[in-house]
């Protein structure tokens, strides 16, 4: 979104008289990108739907507090990431299992998931991603699937570009190794 366009949208979001309409524009603009980002973290569609709705409601409630120090999209992405990670933490606590076990269970459920159409290699890829530490997973998803630039990821995750490059490099190596070992 162009900078001027974003400024206008933000101004309308902060104005009570134009907020509703502006929020509709925001929702329409970012719903898919945010959904896929969340979906790659939680894997399941219903969970992704819950987290996405919570994300937009949080955005709606917090818009007055957004100072515009970062880009609007970075802010949205950050909220979506936090909501997804909080969701997983809460789910693992409710089930009484570790985060690692939850990740394994989520991947195993993909086989029976009607909203997953991947072949064996796609499934292996998800299995490999599930073995990554949380930050590496996020960086890999954002770089590989979302095609975000390192600068954009840096603004979202508040990590240096150098650190992100290292994380991504390590993630790729681990995934390659996992898939090779499983073949």
């Amino acid at each position, binding site marked *: 979104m162009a900078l001027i366009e974003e400024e206008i949208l933000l101004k309308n979001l902060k104005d009570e008289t134009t907020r*509703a309409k502006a*929020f509709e524009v925001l929702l329409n603009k970012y719903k898919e990108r945010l959904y896929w980002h969340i*979906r790659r973290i939680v894997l399941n569609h219903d969970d992704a739907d819950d987290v996405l709705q919570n994300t937009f409601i949080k955005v709606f409630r917090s818009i007055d507090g957004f100072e515009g120090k970062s880009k609007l999209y970075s802010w949205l992405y950050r909220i979506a990431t936090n909501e997804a990670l909080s969701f997983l933490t809460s789910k693992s606590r409710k089930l009484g299992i570790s985060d690692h076990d939850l990740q394994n269970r989520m991947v195993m459920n993909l086989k029976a998931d009607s909203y*997953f159409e*991947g072949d064996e290699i796609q499934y292996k890829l998800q299995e490999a991603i599930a073995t990554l530490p949380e930050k590496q997973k996020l960086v890999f998803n954002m770089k590989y699937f979302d095609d975000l630039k390192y600068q954009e990821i840096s603004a979202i995750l508040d990590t240096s570009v150098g650190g992100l490059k290292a994380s991504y490099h390590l993630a790729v190596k681990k995934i390659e190794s996992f898939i090779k070992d499983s073949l």
Partner: protein
Amino acid sequence: MPEDYLEKFSEKLLPQLEEPSSKNLDKTSFKVPKNYWEKLELEVLQKTTEINKTPKKSLRLEPYFLVAAAIALIVVLAIGLNSGNSTEKSLDFASLEESELFNYLEDIYLEEPSNELIEIFPQGDMTWNMNDVTTLEEENILDYLEDTIDEMDEFKFQEDE
């Protein structure tokens, strides 16, 4: 080329540039239910409309809460007042010992008379002269006795009881 080709071309191209890339679907092989995006918009907008309609909670205290707070305050004050009084000696005369009472009374009578009393009763008048007694005559004594006889009768025992 067709007449309106360029116009149609730009009309076709611009939306594709603005929409997010669909290659994510190929990479992850995830998909969404039919009409999900429309349904999502409706649900989110409905929820945000409800948030707008919900009045902001003001600091309005429920009546029962006020009653509970008042009771708690009374209890706290009562405890505070009682703890304050317990440090003082209770004014119970029964607990006073006789010696303490006598000591108190002596202190009062041994005190020097106030200046007011000295003015009303000059010291010179307060001296008692033994000679004054010897000047009393027998007649004066008899007069005194007559005056007090009626009073004396009161002290006779009634033999009928």
